[in-house]
């Protein structure tokens, strides 16, 4: 929250894909919580200030803190902007014990955090393993929480399993499932037999179990990682601007990711090293429990280089860039879309929708929404995409009704919401649905306008159809009329139209309606 420059006393929230990912203390008091939807959050707190998610901004704001830690130990790993890990045993020995070292760290980081804003706070947790220490830091009151050596299992045992999701160690689906099975706290999960957990929940559950027992890291990988997990680029001319470096990093990251994928691996710890013409060097380790894809790799390179260049520590252009995958794990596949999550294509489309909305306005980027009715334009409408969560399966099903892919039997939750519309025309549906009906003339042999009687009969067989100002075409076939008599109980809203499908001698097929003895073209089968 600090990186956005908002004081904790102002209710504010950071949103990503319409969901709250961070909120200020004042917003929390108003009932805004993480993972809440934008609408819900604004309902709870109307004066809420909305800030868009911007990891680049966060990375720049967090940089001074990372540099302050790096003065004590080079082995600092940044998980994401605002979250760094370091092994404490070595430096603790050097600086005279854990307490003494943490005290030093608290002082140094607090000063560094002032760069980001007067209200910035750094909290430190020390425990066995990465997960326990993250939980400890989040639960640290003012500055630091130390869990004694060997105390992590006891420390974690009483905490809810939701921490697994909050720290990125397990998916929300797994946490949800655990809670529904009655496994509410980490102690209960840790008490289970690891073999049973692996059999029931697969590799992800196995990892969650390991983490919950206070152990850490992925299990040792059975095969040794291949040696060639380093990619590097050199520049003949020192590069002083960020963009070309990021561009090169992209091709390096693609190469590294492809090499890893060829071995069925995923990078969990990435070392990014850069050097300038004058010999200045910058090395940083990045960590993510569930692995870094090619796009994530590039993102980390950009964060690191951007803050390094902005730090003013370098006096020349960058001549060498190196990416090393120093930690890998087996790749369990990335097909989360099958589980109702979102795939890479979904993420890309959601981002594109946001960008297009800023380009053409929210009325210019639309997604279909089922309304129901008997005339084509009534049955399905378009709603602005910017206000919706396009990847939430339940939302999508509610919006699309019978148009959703449910018909194949996956999900099936929407079946009871679908009401049939008696009197609607059977498939095929028209491919062209005119936003505004176009006036048409349906005439008989003598050129007289066809009339529809009150009993739904045509005055004569139609022979020509003229749409707008175009040349009349000969009618080769027609079907109907089918009368729609809607809201007959309503004096002003009553609508009575006769629908007719007409094919013409040029091969075109149209849906025309007669209302008040005038013909309109509604849709065409093209």
């Amino acid at each position, binding site marked *: 929250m600090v990186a956005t420059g908002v004081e904790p006393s102002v209710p504010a929230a950071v949103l990503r894909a319409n969901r709250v990912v961070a909120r200020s203390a004042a917003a929390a008091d108003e009932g805004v919580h993480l993972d809440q939807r934008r609408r819900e959050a604004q309902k709870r707190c109307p004066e809420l200030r909305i800030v868009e998610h911007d990891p680049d901004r966060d990375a720049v704001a967090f940089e001074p803190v990372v540099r302050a830690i790096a003065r004590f130990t080079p082995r600092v790993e940044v998980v994401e902007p605002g979250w760094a890990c370091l092994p404490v045993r070595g430096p603790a020995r050097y600086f005279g014990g854990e307490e003494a070292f943490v005290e030093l760290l608290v002082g140094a980081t607090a000063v560094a955090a002032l760069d980001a804003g007067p209200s910035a706070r750094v909290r430190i947790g020390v425990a066995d393993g990465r997960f326990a220490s993250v939980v400890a830091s989040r639960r640290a009151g003012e500055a630091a929480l130390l869990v004694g050596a060997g105390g992590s299992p006891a420390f974690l045992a009483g905490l809810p399993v939701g921490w697994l999701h909050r720290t990125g160690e397990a998916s929300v689906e797994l946490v949800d499932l655990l809670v529904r099975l009655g496994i509410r706290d980490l102690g209960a999960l840790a008490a289970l037999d690891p073999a049973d957990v692996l059999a029931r929940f697969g590799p992800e559950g196995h990892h969650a179990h390991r983490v919950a027992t206070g152990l850490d890291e992925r299990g040792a990988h059975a095969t040794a990682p291949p040696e060639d997990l380093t990619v590097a680029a050199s520049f003949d001319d020192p590069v002083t601007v960020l963009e070309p470096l990021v561009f090169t990093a992209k091709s390096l990251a693609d190469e590294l990711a492809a090499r890893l994928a060829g071995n069925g691996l995923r990078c969990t710890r990435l070392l990014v090293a850069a050097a300038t013409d004058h010999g200045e060097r910058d090395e940083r380790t990045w960590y993510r429990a569930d692995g870094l894809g090619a796009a994530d790799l590039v993102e980390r390179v950009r964060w690191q280089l951007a803050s390094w260049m902005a730090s003013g520590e370098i006096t020349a252009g960058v001549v060498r860039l190196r990416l090393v995958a120093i930690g890998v794990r087996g790749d369990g596949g990335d097909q989360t879309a099958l589980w109702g999550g979102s795939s890479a294509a979904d993420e890309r489309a959601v981002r594109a929708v946001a960008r297009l909305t800023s*380009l053409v306005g929210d009325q210019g980027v639309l997604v279909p929404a089922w309304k129901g009715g008997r005339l084509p334009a009534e049955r399905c409408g378009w709603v602005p995409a910017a206000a919706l969560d396009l990847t939430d399966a339940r939302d999508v099903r509610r919006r699309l009704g019978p148009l959703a892919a449910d018909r194949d039997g996956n999900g099936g939750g929407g079946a009871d919401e679908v009401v049939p519309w008696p009197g609607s025309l059977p498939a*095929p549906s028209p*491919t*062209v649905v005119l936003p505004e009906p176009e006036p048409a003339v349906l005439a008989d042999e003598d050129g007289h306008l066809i009339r529809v009687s009150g009993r739904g009969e045509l005055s004569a067989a139609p022979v020509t159809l003229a749409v707008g100002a175009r040349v009349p075409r000969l009618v080769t076939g027609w079907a109907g009329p089918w009368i729609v008599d809607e809201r007959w109980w309503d004096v002003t809203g009553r609508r009575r139209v006769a629908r007719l499908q*007409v094919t013409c001698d040029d*091969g075109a097929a149209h849906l025309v309606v007669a209302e008040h003895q005038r013909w309109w073209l509604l849709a065409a*089968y093209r």
Partner: protein
Amino acid sequence: MDLALAAAVAPTTMAAERTVAVAPPLASLLPEGGLVRGRTLACEGLAAPSLALSLVAEAGRAGAWLAVLDLPWLGVEAAVELGVPAERLVRVDAGRPDGSAGNDQRGELWGEVLGAVLDGFDLVVTRVPPRVPATLGRRLQTRLRTRGAVLVLIGDPGPLSPDVTVTSAEVRWEGVGGGHGHLRSRRVGVEAAGRRVPRPRRAELWLPAVGGAVAAAVPEPTVLHPRSTADPVLDTVG
């Protein structure tokens, strides 16, 4: 893992991997048997909208997102019947948020929006507005190739040069007579030509077949049953 083995099992990108599946009845029309990323297809003729939608439907079902640009009249129900997943369908209308854009800016604006659409979507169906500068067309197709999306044009491709042009001719509707039945299916003769198609390819399709999807039509036996399609079909509506 052994390095030589790692190299042997590493994924390689081949031309075939850049193809995206299409519905089986349409595969015979395309030289690669599917859509190729980075290429442009043009659909012309009376059945162009159905043809364009049925070409992208299979890729959409496999998880790709489809953007329809500047086609405000697109019938969603028909698209769904042809196999397009409605949950991955987005309509984009090129225009300024305040509605200001004269006729002469229309082509430029369309190009700008199409560029942004190509960045985010794997499948794009659009039509080319009049007065698009030739340089813009070339720039867009270069961008299309680097992004690896598939662009399907409905109607006149203007300054864009399609790799394959699919033209629908010989359209015949089945199901309606003199006041009875309802539209059921359409038989369409389709021909694919263009610089990626050495010899024009032809196919007979039901587009749509009964139910709204696409199906291959068997070549008709000539004059053996002259009245076979004239039987009136009684059908309930609803």
